[in-house]
């Protein structure tokens, strides 16, 4: 199957691979910088399976904490403080959403994969 490659010299393959890795890396780096830009939007929505559960205006929302419970016994506790939203606690085993901290970028929503919950800036 790899007969095709054996004809090529090792050096050529390595050069091609190193070059492609470098290109992927640089493109990703530039994209990452764009993705990590803080959002200008004030509207935050909490979505589960394409259904919007809550919408908040971050400039007006008062500090609060509430829990979203699911049929399977799992839950997420959402906290809004000083115009920032974060997941304060979760029943899911990995707690990734908690460790993600506050929502700050439009393109980087807080996602709780086990509960299919997404917290993101709305348009």
């Amino acid at each position, binding site marked *: 199957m*790899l007969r095709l490659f054996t004809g090529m010299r090792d050096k050529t*393959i390595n050069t091609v691979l190193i070059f492609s890795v470098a290109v992927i890396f640089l493109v990703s780096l530039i994209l990452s910088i764009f993705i990590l830009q803080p959002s200008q939007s004030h509207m935050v929505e909490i979505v589960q399976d394409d259904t919007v559960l809550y919408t908040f205006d971050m400039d007006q929302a008062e500090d609060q904490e509430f829990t979203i419970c699911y049929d399977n016994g799992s839950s997420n506790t959402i906290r809004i403080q000083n115009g920032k939203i974060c997941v304060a606690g979760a029943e899911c085993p990995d707690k990734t959403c908690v460790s993600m901290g506050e929502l700050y970028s439009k393109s980087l929503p807080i996602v709780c994969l086990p509960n299919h919950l997404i917290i993101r800036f709305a348009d």
Partner: protein
Amino acid sequence: MSVKRMTQLSLLTAAALILYVIELQLPSLVPIPGVKLGLANIITVVAVYRFRPYEAAILVAVRVILGAFFAGNLSALLFSGCGAALCLCGMLLLGRVISVKYIPLCSVLGAMLHNAGQIAAAVWVVQSTSVLVYLPILMVTGGIAGLFTGLCAQAVERRLPASYQRKSCRSSKKS
């Protein structure tokens, strides 16, 4: 598979699991899911160069499943499984064309494939392409982590006794 061979594989699997558990204790630097060092990948890279494809596959499968039990996080099994499978397939092919001297290159590509596999699984689970934004970030961090684990793998590969060697290279002559 001879008993000796199986013992060698078990030893490497145990080493991979130890690395995995150690890594669980390290705090994550970036609050982005999926960003990690992937220390257990050191063993995978070594296995790709020193073992037959199916032996490396067994090693990775056992490590991923037992690792999920140790972490107490079976829901992450799908992601790590998809990532590890894509990473292993890619590295097995790359291991044929990239010489031992360039192990870090193989590892970097493997790490990137691992993250791509994880993202693919996440897209499938969430049924939404919104998770794709993680891809560039994971490519950058995965590239750096892959370079590090690749250098480690090179150091390990150099010190591993010659008895840890695939007996016959079954592919190139027959096909």
